[in-house]
């Protein structure tokens, strides 16, 4: 599978048809997805129609978009007109949305070809894709292991060469951690940079849509396409986004990279640490300066997140009532019974856990102690970043404390799974752009990602640093996938 920009350039120049690119992707899905389970829905005919339309457009001499003929997977949390959208939940099984998410509209407007909807943890609540109501996704590098989550289907589809890029969503690390676990590039943009219109809401003060791609330039092009103001999302930033692809040139000479001690403390596995240390040494060889920094409130992040995100989720998910869309419990005599029975049948265990957690922290008598404190802690965590960025250009760390764990390993220990997000959650709470870029794998061959965080709106610097890292660690697809 070629990278995003290679396919788009080849289709634009007439060296490849969109139909041929689409068929190659569908063949790869047919051959590999039975073992990986990255897709909930493969939209074969829908994709072929789009591909034919792109080829006709070229035949008419019309200019093609920046993603001409590029096969793309979209996380099943974003609505697609006429293509089933489940959000990984039985609650939305068979739901046919009547409109496209803004991100989907932008992909189609730039002539991408959407080949299917990627698997995910139910309502994006999870770090392993095991909480999908349908099936777990396997890591293409080792099918006994998780691809991470919640955008695990998106990451696995890219890592196994089914598509060169996919769309994910990231609330506390759900693009970056699966990118790290699968050796792909995953970007969480600045809060407000990408529209959430048509993204099924989980925690609205945190949710961001972002790309996962097989290389940095491909991720940059995808990001450039989906970024920008949207009248349907009131949190959308009005300032025009930076065009990151042009800045993804890989120069780090003279940059000051902050290395927070708190991200290299107890809990970080030795093999991940070795890979990250090697990558940091490579960056210094390229002219960057490593600056030790303190992020003293890092230890508050997971607890803060698991108050704020469930609180918002408990409110957002109240819309699932069996009345306007989704499934409905049968044979209920009253409206109250109908709503309760629908929710009891439709939601899975992790979603129920988070709804109750959110209900608890917002309930009378506990609101100040939990939610009020979490809001205060969130501001302290954001201040850590503000302070750090007075002396450094970016902050670098591991994405996750470990490489991909075995399927089922943390299934009965929700707190342990929550703590695996400890390095990605702080940037989410602060609303900052961050990404995962592959570095050296572990001795057993599992991918490891370097986490880079930049100032709000500075996606250009983010992609530039990632491009420098990529010069030392060229993109690789999973072997044997």
């Amino acid at each position, binding site marked *: 599978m070629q990278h995003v920009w290679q396919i788009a350039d080849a289709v634009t120049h007439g060296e490849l048809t969109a139909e041929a690119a689409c068929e190659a992707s569908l063949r790869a899905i047919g051959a590999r997805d039975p073992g990986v389970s990255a897709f909930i829905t493969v939209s074969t005919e829908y994709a072929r129609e789009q591909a034919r339309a792109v080829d006709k457009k070229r035949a008419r001499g019309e200019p093609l978009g920046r993603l001409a003929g590029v096969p793309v997977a979209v996380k099943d949390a974003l609505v697609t007109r006429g293509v089933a959208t489940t959000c990984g939940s039985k609650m939305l099984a068979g739901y046919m949305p009547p409109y496209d998410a803004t991100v989907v509209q932008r992909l189609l407007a730039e002539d991408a070809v959407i080949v299917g909807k990627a698997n995910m943890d139910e309502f994006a609540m999870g770090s392993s894709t095991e909480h999908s109501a349908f099936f777990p996704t396997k890591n293409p590098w080792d099918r006994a292991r998780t691809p991470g989550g919640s955008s695990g289907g998106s990451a696995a589809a890219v890592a196994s060469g089914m598509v060169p890029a996919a769309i994910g969503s990231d609330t506390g690390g759900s693009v970056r951690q699966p990118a790290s676990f699968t050796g792909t590039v995953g970007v969480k943009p600045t809060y407000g940079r990408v529209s959430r219109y048509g993204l099924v809401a989980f925690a609205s003060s945190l949710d961001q849509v972002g790309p996962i791609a097989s290389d940095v330039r491909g991720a940059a092009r995808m990001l450039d396409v989906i970024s920008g103001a949207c*009248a349907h999302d009131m949190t959308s930033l009005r300032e025009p986004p930076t065009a990151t692809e042009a800045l993804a040139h890989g120069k780090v000479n003279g940059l000051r990279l902050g290395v927070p001690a708190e991200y290299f403390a107890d809990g970080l596995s030795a093999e991940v640490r070795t890979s990250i240390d090697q990558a940091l040494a490579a960056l210094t060889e390229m002219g960057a300066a490593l600056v030790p920094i303190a992020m003293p409130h890092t230890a508050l992040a997971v607890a803060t997140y698991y108050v704020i995100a469930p609180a918002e989720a408990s409110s957002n998910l109240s819309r699932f009532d069996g009345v306007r869309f989704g499934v409905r419990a049968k044979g209920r005599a009253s409206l109250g019974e109908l709503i309760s029975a629908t929710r009891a049948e439709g939601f899975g265990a992790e979603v129920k856990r988070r709804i109750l957690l959110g209900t608890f922290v917002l309930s009378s008598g506990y609101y100040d102690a939990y939610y009020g404190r979490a*809001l205060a802690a969130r501001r302290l965590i954001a201040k850590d970043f503000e302070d750090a960025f007075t002396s450094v250009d970016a902050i670098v760390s591991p994405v996750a404390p470990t490489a991909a764990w075995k399927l089922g390993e943390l299934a009965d220990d929700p707190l342990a799974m929550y703590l695996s997000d400890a390095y990605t959650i702080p940037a989410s709470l602060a609303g900052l752009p961050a990404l995962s870029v592959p570095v050296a794998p572990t001795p057993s061959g599992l991918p490891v990602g370097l986490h880079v965080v930049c100032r709000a709106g500075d996606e250009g610097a983010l992609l530039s640093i990632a491009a420098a890292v990529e010069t030392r660690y060229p993109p690789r697809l999973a072997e044997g996938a």
Partner: protein
Amino acid sequence: MITRDEILHLGKLASLPLEEPEIAALSKDLGVILGHVEHVLIASASAITPSAPGAAPGAGSLDALRADTVAPGLRHEDALAAAPETADGGFSVPTFVSG
């Protein structure tokens, strides 16, 4: 540890009736998770003082309102097409007002 009664109360607040095995599991899991939250945010040496809710980080640069211009919305029939049951051009639900 969250008690069985507390779990049932939360389920009622959230319109989420729970089965027996779920109640025990939720009581244990929420106890562990809230124990961590209490330890980190409330009980530890670095305990945080609650403050008035404020804007989320980054929200200062966000636009609260868009231009008030009329644009086509979701068509009536499209909105109804996704509903589990419809009647007389509306969403159909069981009777909820008697008399």
